């Protein structure tokens, strides 16, 4: 009789392409088979997210928007993985994947319209900041509850699979599903991966293991060999990658996509290791539970942006001047869209009631009428100026 003692088994290795100095581990191999132009685009997309994060974090501190979440330290995972997707692929994200939206063509105006919940916001002013959503490329609107997107991703992937069986002309598509290592403790994680395995769904699960779920470190989140070891238990092809290495992330995702589309479809799990350099959100002060020096060390030691920048500089594709002018340009663009989005009207008041059902219920119509009566009876009590069409928006 032999019990398997997990502490005696070998840990799953971490896939890396370049080291923290931006030097390729295998110097004979060009990374990933992508063009330098493409790699420069990744770099600029990571910078854009980073520049936007700094501005929006500060704007929240000034009271300009109610909430914000940065993704500092995790730009490589989101940009690198999204770079391996086609526009027809479908994304279910959590809330720290701004880089996925950026890489897939979400514009600064799209970001700002959502952040200020104005009348150009896809979410019609209904959602908290950073709950982005896009119809095409399809990125389902972020939902705050954790892990709920995981079984949904499996179902969506199954839909894609059936569709391609029923119509072989459809381009091959997968679902990419993002979540953190904290969310992987939810029951939905188990449900989602297990059902994807049993129904052979073409879905790639990307776990961003950034070390913290708000204040809870991974030591108190799980025992065992991270999230990756669980994929093996579900019978799912699994890899662990260095999330600060955008080449490794891209290559893993590109291969995962290929596997997901093989044999009629199957799920894949990627565990991308990183460190949450930022506070959890603008509502959090992480120095209440971790040492400032720990964060500073991480920032200095390793970071997906700096790592790729070093590689670009070694290749002669980037330098200090380009960095400065690019950052300044991005900053200007963000601030321009910021100003315009903030000045824009909010959606009409009827959006408070619409969208609950396909059509307004009789009850909702009566409530809108009653609200309108209140607004007309007590006009001095309500400021409707910022809403499109004022009281007639109801």
């Amino acid at each position, binding site marked *: 009789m032999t019990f398997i003692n997990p502490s005696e088994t070998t840990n799953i290795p971490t896939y890396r392409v370049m080291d923290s100095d931006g030097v390729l581990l295998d110097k004979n191999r060009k990374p990933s088979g992508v063009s330098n132009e493409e790699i420069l685009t990744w770099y600029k997309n990571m910078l854009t997210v980073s520049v936007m994060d*700094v*501005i929006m*974090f*500060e*704007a929240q*501190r*000034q*009271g*300009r*928007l*109610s*909430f914000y979440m940065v993704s500092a330290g995790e730009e490589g995972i989101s940009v690198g993985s999204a770079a391996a997707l086609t526009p027809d692929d479908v994304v279910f994200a959590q809330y720290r994947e701004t880089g996925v939206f950026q890489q897939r063509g979400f514009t600064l105006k799209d970001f700002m319209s959502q952040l*200020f*919940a104005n009348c150009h916001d896809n979410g*019609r*002013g*209904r*959602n*908290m900041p950073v*709950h982005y959503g896009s119809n095409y490329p399809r990125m389902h609107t972020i*939902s*705050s*509850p*954790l892990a709920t997107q995981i079984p949904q991703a499996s179902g969506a992937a199954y839909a894609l699979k059936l569709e391609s069986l029923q119509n072989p002309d459809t381009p091959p598509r997968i679902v990419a599903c993002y979540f953190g290592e*904290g*969310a992987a*403790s*939810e*029951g*939905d994680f188990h449900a989602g991966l297990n059902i994807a395995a049993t129904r052979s769904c073409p879905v790639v699960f990307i776990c961003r293991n950034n070390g913290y*779920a*708000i*204040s*809870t470190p991974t030591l*108190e*989140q*799980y025992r065992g060999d991270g999230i990756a070891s669980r994929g093996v238990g579900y019978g799912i092809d699994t890899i662990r990658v260095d999330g600060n290495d955008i080449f490794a992330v891209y290559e893993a995702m590109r291969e995962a996509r290929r596997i997901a589309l093989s044999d009629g479809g199957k799920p894949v799990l990627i565990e991308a290791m990183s460190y949450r350099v930022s506070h959890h959100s603008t509502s959090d002060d992480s120095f*209440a539970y971790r040492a400032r020096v720990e964060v500073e060390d991480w920032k200095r030691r390793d970071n997906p942006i700096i790592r790729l920048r070093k590689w670009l500089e070694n290749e002669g594709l980037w330098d200090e001047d380009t960095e400065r002018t690019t950052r300044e340009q991005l900053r200007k663009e963000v*601030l321009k869209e*910021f*100003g315009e989005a*903030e000045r824009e009207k909010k*959606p009409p*008041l009827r*959006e*408070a*009631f619409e969208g*609950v059902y396909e059509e307004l219920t009789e*009850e*909702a119509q009566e*409530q809108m009428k009653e*609200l309108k009566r*209140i607004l007309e*009876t*007590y006009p*001095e*009590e*309500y*400021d409707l100026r910022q*809403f499109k069409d004022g009281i007639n928006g109801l």
Partner: protein
Amino acid sequence: MASLRLPRLIRPSGRRLYSGAASPSSRLNLPIDYKTTPLLHHTSSTLSESLELPGSTTSKSMNLYQAINSALRTALAKSEKVMLFGEDVAFGGVFRCSMDLQTEFGSERVFNTPLTEQGIVGFAIGAAAQGMKPVAEIQFADYVFPAFDQIVNEAAKFRYREGATGVHAGGMVVRMPCGAVGHGALYHSQSPEALFAHVPGVQVVVPRSPSQAKGLLLASIFEHNNPVIFMEPKCLYRAAVEHVPNEYYTIPLSKAEILKPGNDVTLISYGQPLYLCSAAIAAAEKALGVSVELIDLRTIYPWDRQTVLDSVKKTGRAIVVHESMINYGVGAEVAATIQDQAFLRLEAPVKRVAGWSTHTGLQYEKFILPDVARIYDAIKQSIEY
């Protein structure tokens, strides 16, 4: 990042642009002034009488999260059976309710759990069934739903199912911050008390203030052998400050409280909207010359029907106010009970002022949730019926 300077384009503004600030001309929908509201004990003088404590009781001024912290500290010190756990509880919790408690009582009884609400509540039920008094924290009421199965099918039915074995899940308290703050949108605003009140077997409690919260929470832990859902209005965590007794004391569950006597209309509410009711009553009594009685239900289920019915039989008019959606809400149950048992004493239909039957869309919160103007209008309509 705090030192970062933003250029003039987004220089700091004087007010929070995002929040639905009251119109400059508002007379009714003004921000609640928690420093002067009659609902809080601004001095210790009124405290011992209203809580039926000895005159020698000492107290300290504190806000709601500090009062919860004080209750938890009192409970952990009183009995080794009390445990406290949930997501991020160890460092003090995201709302600071469990501050310093792990340091004081050790990580055996005060600890972080993995991020799994169904796990947290199931764990609590198991511990309670084995005789402990687990206090489980769900980080936001909006996130309790993975635990709905554990609460509805397990905690609520445990005693009934066990029958003669006598085993039950009493002693378990599931705490959760609830309610809107003005910018929580779909998932940081909900008040799901009606969903739990539909389930016989759990007690549902919503405190209105720091001193109420401490007494009700200690009663939930020690004085009832039923599982309790304890919902804390999170916008009161810092805003509501009052004197709270230092000692152990309890406030009975399933007992409403008349906060202000009146003759013409009965206002029935609980939690944060009581402050809106109080402001609306002040305006209505001044402008309309009416006398309004205000009742805090405190326990949503099983609820104190007698206090409400006695009041409505006296006034002949009733208005139920709550933040969560009006459809199939607490107001529906209260109104139906009133019309069933006090029909001949009614001078006007029972009114409900509650959230509209929609979700809490970010930009629309102040139009969706009850406000002072809508409560004032309901009082006027009820009187003029």
